[in-house]
């Protein structure tokens, strides 16, 4: 059942499949692009709100706007995978000293033997 139309259809479908497969291989680039687009939109919103904040007098309205800006910052941190309070120092690692055997453990083993 060999016909030129069917062969062309086959080549076209294979071409589309190859494009889909390439997109799958390059999925990390798409994820990075999606993150960049989302962060950019939120930042634009943030800058707009900052301009509004500078014009407002001290009061409830200004405070509400400030909280909204803080929420936007948190959203950016969530998208980018950063901790919310990035200026805090991380906790020091609790290192176990493996060279020293606790005394009660030693005694217990001695009794057992």
């Amino acid at each position, binding site marked *: 059942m*060999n016909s030129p139309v069917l062969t062309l259809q086959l080549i076209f479908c294979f071409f589309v499949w190859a494009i889909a497969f390439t997109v799958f291989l390059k999925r990390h680039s798409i994820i990075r692009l999606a993150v960049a687009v989302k962060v950019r939109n939120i930042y634009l919103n943030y800058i707009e709100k900052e301009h509004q904040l500078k014009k407002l007098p001290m009061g409830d309205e200004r405070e509400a706007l400030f909280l909204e800006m803080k929420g936007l910052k948190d959203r950016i941190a969530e998208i980018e995978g950063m901790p919310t309070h990035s200026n805090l120092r991380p906790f020091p690692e609790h290192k176990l000293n493996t060279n020293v055997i606790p005394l009660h453990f030693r005694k217990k083993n001695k009794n057992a033997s």
Partner: protein
Amino acid sequence: MNELINGYLSLFYVSDSDFFLDYLIAYSSSLLIAFFITCIKFALKKTNLAHLTLVGTITLSYLSTDYIMTLEYMTKKSEWLESIMNTYFMFSLFDSLTAGLLLFLTPFLTKKLSSAFYISIYVLLCNSLLHLILMTDYIFSPNVNKGIHFLYSTMVNANDLLMLVAFIAPVWVGYVVSFLAGRYRNTIARLKAMLA
């Protein structure tokens, strides 16, 4: 073995039993039920929007192609093979386009891609390639190759069932995938290095 293959393939060829039609309708109904279950889960906040979009898009894609397939089967029973060629090309095209659409759409909805998403993309791309392999065999080889038919049929059915399970129980499938990924870590690393 030959009898087994012939018996299995006779279920999916046009015959008086109409098993193939029943199978298509049962699978489409199962997909629709999976979609409704996902909707209920989303309403109860048990799953995210990305999974709902994934299940919705694939259900829509499968239902449309299954409808055309059933129509072809019902109306052109005598010229099944001639009419099904274009339909199969369309299936391949639909699967590839759905995979591409999901790959572009899902990263904008979620940060971390789930196992159900990867399984769906694998199933769509694999099925699309299998349709093309079957069509290549139909176009270029003069005789019917039952081995390729058997491979195509079993793999497509297994893939479809795998996708259905991934839609209904995404968390459990995620556990299984992470367990297997941990077990075959070296093989996966080698494959990644090959593809990079």
